[in-house]
């Protein structure tokens, strides 16, 4: 409880300090942020639309990290998920739109999962740490995206390097087209329940926690450590790929070189702020989603421009990472000296 209050307090303080440093009127800016994130139906829809990719990638990071696989490659898995989705949409062109929607979603999941699985298999069989390999795979994915939208996925009728636009029927429903809300967002929230149930009520989820906490002991308990690590990464990448497919089918409609918006990187502070817990991650994703939506309003209404918004977001992320580090240290005071409280 104190932990939550401290975190919330620190985040609020960081926001106020950053606004003040940019010479913005603090109270007005805060009210702009509040209005831009929660003030109207459109604002709330915007907050939810920003929350969805953060939430899905955050859940992905959470599962991998819980299993001790420090996946830094959410971004790359997101990109590959998006690419596979766009590719599937191209291949299945002409099929009924519901089929295309489903196929795009599944391909996104599969693409992200396989891309993460590659890193996991490299660690399990060749000893290449995922911390390193997933970072490098991010770069490959981004280069792949740039190439694909200028090459095989390029919309021939477009003058810019981008994939073809999806027809409306394939896209998720937008009940009110004036707002950003689309039905894909609901899938992101359903994923919280799925991940929660997976970690809490299945044997595999239970074993993942063990493997993450102590792989040696997990092996001694006859758990298949390598296979579980790969499983965790498949889930992780699959969720990041799903995030991409939902963005693609929700608002983006097409891929171009700037399809990724750092969601896969932002997922890490989201998952950390959420205490690597599904419910906590939901709260953290909502916070960041609201902050992003609110900051967009701030950028529109003040002269500081978009760069101040990036700073505000970055400071929030740094605060979260810093607090996470402090928590990590304070959570194991007994292990510092030898024997504990004997």
């Amino acid at each position, binding site marked *: 409880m104190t932990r939550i209050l401290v975190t919330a307090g620190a985040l609020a303080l960081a926001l106020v300090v950053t606004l003040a440093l940019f010479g913005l009127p603090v109270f007005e800016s805060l009210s702009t942020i509040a209005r831009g994130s929660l003030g109207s139906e459109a604002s709330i829809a915007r907050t939810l639309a920003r929350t969805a990719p953060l939430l899905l990638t955050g859940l992905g990071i959470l599962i991998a990290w819980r299993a001790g696989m420090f996946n830094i490659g959410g971004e790359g898995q997101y990109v590959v998920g998006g690419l596979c989705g766009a590719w599937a949409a191209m291949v299945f062109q002409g099929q009924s739109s519901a089929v295309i929607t489903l196929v795009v979603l599944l391909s996104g999941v599969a693409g992200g999962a396989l891309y993460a699985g590659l890193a996991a298999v490299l660690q399990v069989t060749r000893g290449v740490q995922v911390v390193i390999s997933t970072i490098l795979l991010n770069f490959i994915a981004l280069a792949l995206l740039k190439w694909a939208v200028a090459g095989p996925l390029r919309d021939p009728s477009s003058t810019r390097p981008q994939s073809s636009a999806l027809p409306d029927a394939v896209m998720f429903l937008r009940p009110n087209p004036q707002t950003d809300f689309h039905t894909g967002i609901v899938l992101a929230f359903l994923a919280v329940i799925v991940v929660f149930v997976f970690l809490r009520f*299945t044997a595999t989820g239970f074993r993942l926690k*063990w493997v993450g906490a102590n792989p040696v*002991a997990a092996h001694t308990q006859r*758990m298949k450590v390598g296979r579980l690590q790969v499983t965790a990464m498949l889930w992780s990448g699959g969720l990041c790929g799903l995030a991409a497919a939902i963005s693609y089918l929700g608002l983006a409609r097409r891929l171009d070189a700037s399809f990724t918006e750092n969601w896969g990187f932002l997922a890490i502070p989201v998952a950390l702020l959420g205490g690597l817990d599904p419910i906590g991650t939901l709260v953290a994703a909502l916070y960041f989603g609201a902050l992003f939506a609110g900051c967009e309003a701030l950028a529109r209404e003040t002269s500081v421009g978009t760069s101040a918004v990036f700073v505000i977001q970055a400071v929030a992320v740094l605060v979260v990472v810093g607090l996470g580090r402090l928590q990590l240290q304070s959570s194991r005071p007994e292990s510092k000296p*030898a*024997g*504990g409280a004997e």
Partner: protein
Amino acid sequence: MSEATLRVEGVTKAFGSVVALNAVSVEFLPGEVHAVLGENGAGKSTLMNVLGGFLTPDEGTVSYRGEALPLGQAAEMRQRGFAMVHQHFMLVPNFTVGENLALDALQDLRGRLAQPDLIASALERAKSLGWSIDVDDRTDDLPVGTQQRIEILKALAGPSDVIIFDEPTAVLVPSEVEELLGLLRRLAEEGRIVILIAHKLSEILAVADRITVLRRGRVVAQTTQMEANAAQIAEWMVGDVPAPQSPLQEALGEKAVRVKDLVVSGDRGEPAVRGISFEIRSGEVLGIGGVDGNGQTELAEAVAGIRSRKGGDIVTPNGVAFIPPDRQRAGLALSLSVEDNLWSGPVQRRQGLVLNRKRLWNWSRGVVQDYEIKVGNLSDPVRSLSGGNQQKVVVGRELSESPGLLVVVNPTRGLDVRATEFVHRRILDAARAGAAVLLISTDSDELAALAHRILYLSRGELRDSLVGATA
């Protein structure tokens, strides 16, 4: 009273709601070996960590040579001559011996790093003790006994007017224990204050000039070697004297375990177990003694089915329970809850897809009661338990569903008298219920108390006696 007295006065330290030390006052005199005794959780380690500078007490003072000490500042305390030999060695496993010694002697990070200069005094000390140390050995390749010697050299290389040994005999074989006790005497005779924490009363009585007994964070008694009496001390510690265990006399069952020409490699592919054969009947406890690092871990893991074998055959009955030698490394996930640490037992045995949380919860409550595990809440991390209770979690998890084969390695390392007796009883219960038990231990008392037969491991081969089996 001598000038160089170490005076602990009214020290209190609480961890949350647990009061680990409650107004403890003790005086330590130079030239004496002073033993501090107590059950697990009595506050011994906390007291030692205060003296080592690792913990700041909530109340009370500690003074040495009449000066108040900078408590909670480990580096400063080390400068004042307080050295500690930890129960869990403070060595960097993938450093060489020389690097570990140099690391400890390093004053700061400025200037040139000259390992030979830094470790000269430690090597000289080793020479005077008659120890041969190869500075280029990788630390984690060495047997536990040798690692302890490095730990001791680290302590002696710097200023070491007060030297604290935290349960140093737990990992040693009898001949090594004897040598260590001799060393303690010698250090005291050189005018040091030697503080010893140990469980075995016989060892303490043999070496300690003065004995302080802690129970639940309080000093309950102090005595000298002259007046000490084992039964009396045990009573102070636990309130009653545990009855010594004796091996079973019941008739043994069928041959349950058959191991033939077993060959197993170590972690780096080196031959660890070199073609050994034995059989265990159901209900029988086969004890395997010998010095650490002679293939014990590899043998145990191979028989338990966790390590693949390079050659030979193993036949085991259904239901293999395994109590690994190092609970913190291989037995428990310290950051997970007590609950999670218990549940892995049934979850792994049943291999179902879905957790029946309610049934698991009820089951784990039962284990906590049966095994007298002292825990406030099942969702507390297992790290917050004392060593004895942690071991009970492992034993409870492994034994609560009567196994066909029980493989146990050093099950009571670092446990106090009462917890040791408890674990022993549970192992014997398992045997009585029909389990074949492979007990691998470096503690000859433990082997004598539990085993029907005792064999010895030396360089990966089995011998009939310990003669020639010491390292």
